[in-house]
């Protein structure tokens, strides 16, 4: 009997402890604002907040709480080049974490502006959605060479550390020599693209059209077989259209529908090539 009672008491204490934990976490999330909450683990020990920085870039801060929270601070993770050191006392609350994270984001604004500038103005290799944490950008510099630029997050507008790689050693070395000779021309006043083009003395490839990828500006490759119509299409565009309407039929990898101009039957082979190849 005694045994059962003590087990029961221990269970109640455990429950009371976890219910006060839940209440605390719940009220602290409320302080931050439910609208910022993105994910929430069932036991409230894991969740993430959404936050916008000054330039309107969206960031996600993931928090992991220990059972003895707030005695031990939450562990944090986010898509940032380095994490700030959290100032924490037992009276600290989640809103203090968010406040410190916001300040950290503020301090990284110039760094991300430089990266955004690179992603917008240059052809960045293998980065559909480049990470906000990575200070590295691999930039296409013609057929022969890639530039791996390493942005200094303490001084993002300064001369980046650059490596040159490519299949042709002579072309790569050539570019490297020009880079070394002219790198003192780097100016914090100019954009990244201007600096790079000025130093290398050449025009660099621009980013591909984001919707059509490599096929932007290419010629049409499908023609309506109705001789009096004879309209030409990009099969990619025609496929997009046929897939968006309910009357289209598909057999294996061919879509059967009607020509947008003359309504005569058309049959397009689905091209499996990625849109953003």
């Amino acid at each position, binding site marked *: 009997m005694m045994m059962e009672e003590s087990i029961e008491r221990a269970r109640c204490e455990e429950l009371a402890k976890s219910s006060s934990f839940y209440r605390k976490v719940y009220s602290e999330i409320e302080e931050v604002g439910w609208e910022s909450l993105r994910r929430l683990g069932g036991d409230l020990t894991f969740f993430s907040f959404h936050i916008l920085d000054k330039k309107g870039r969206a960031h996600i801060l993931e928090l992991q709480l220990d059972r003895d929270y707030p005695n031990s601070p939450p562990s944090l993770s986010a898509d940032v080049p380095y994490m700030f050191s959290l100032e924490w006392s037992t009276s600290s609350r989640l809103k203090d974490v968010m406040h410190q994270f916001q300040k950290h984001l503020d301090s990284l604004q110039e760094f991300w502006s430089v990266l955004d500038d690179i992603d917008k103005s240059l052809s960045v290799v293998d980065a559909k959605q480049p990470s906000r944490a990575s200070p590295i950008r691999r930039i296409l510099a013609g057929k022969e060479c890639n530039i791996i630029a390493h942005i200094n997050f303490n001084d993002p507008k300064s001369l980046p550390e650059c490596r040159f790689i490519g299949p042709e050693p002579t072309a790569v070395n050539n570019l490297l020599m020009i880079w070394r000779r002219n790198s003192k021309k780097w100016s914090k006043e100019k954009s990244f693209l201007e600096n790079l083009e000025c130093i290398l003395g050449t025009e660099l490839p621009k980013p591909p059209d984001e*919707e059509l990828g490599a096929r932007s500006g290419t010629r049409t490759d499908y023609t309506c077989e109705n001789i009096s119509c004879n*309209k030409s299409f990009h099969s990619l565009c025609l496929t997009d259209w046929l897939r*968006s309407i309910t009357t289209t039929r598909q057999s294996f990898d061919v879509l059967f529908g009607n*020509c*947008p*101009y003359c309504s005569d039957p058309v049959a397009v082979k689905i091209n499996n090539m990625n849109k953003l190849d």
Partner: protein
Amino acid sequence: MSSSGAPSHKALSKIACKRLQKELVEWQMNPPTGFKHKVTDNLQRWIIEVIGAPGTLYANETYQLQVDFPEHYPMESPQVIFLLPAPLHPHIYSNGHICLDILYDSWSPAMTVSSICISILSMLSSSTEKQRPTDNDRYVQNCKNGRSPKETRWWFHDDKV
């Protein structure tokens, strides 16, 4: 009129932008007869003046069309409505909504603002009496919350007018 069927506020895609710029240039070179595009800096919403064709019930009357383009135009049809007062016509509701199949189920990306305008003018011109659709009051009541005509399940029962 900004409350009338506010379309989604998603910005135009690059493809939509290019296409509309092209249409605008073509319109300026060769505007459809009876229409005037009111110049604004908003590519996503065109306001177009319609003048009733001579010799029809709407001769010398002027109306305004509002054309709103979705993000993925021309894969998706634009929303086309008459600004008030809308012409009295058996296929035009008093809230400006137009019952015309090409604006909804029969839309094709091969159509353009210009071809839509011509279809609307020919719809006006072929009308033999100035009256509202028979279900006007019920329909307009149903759209009170600012619903877009593109959300209506249209039933195109009559292709004479």
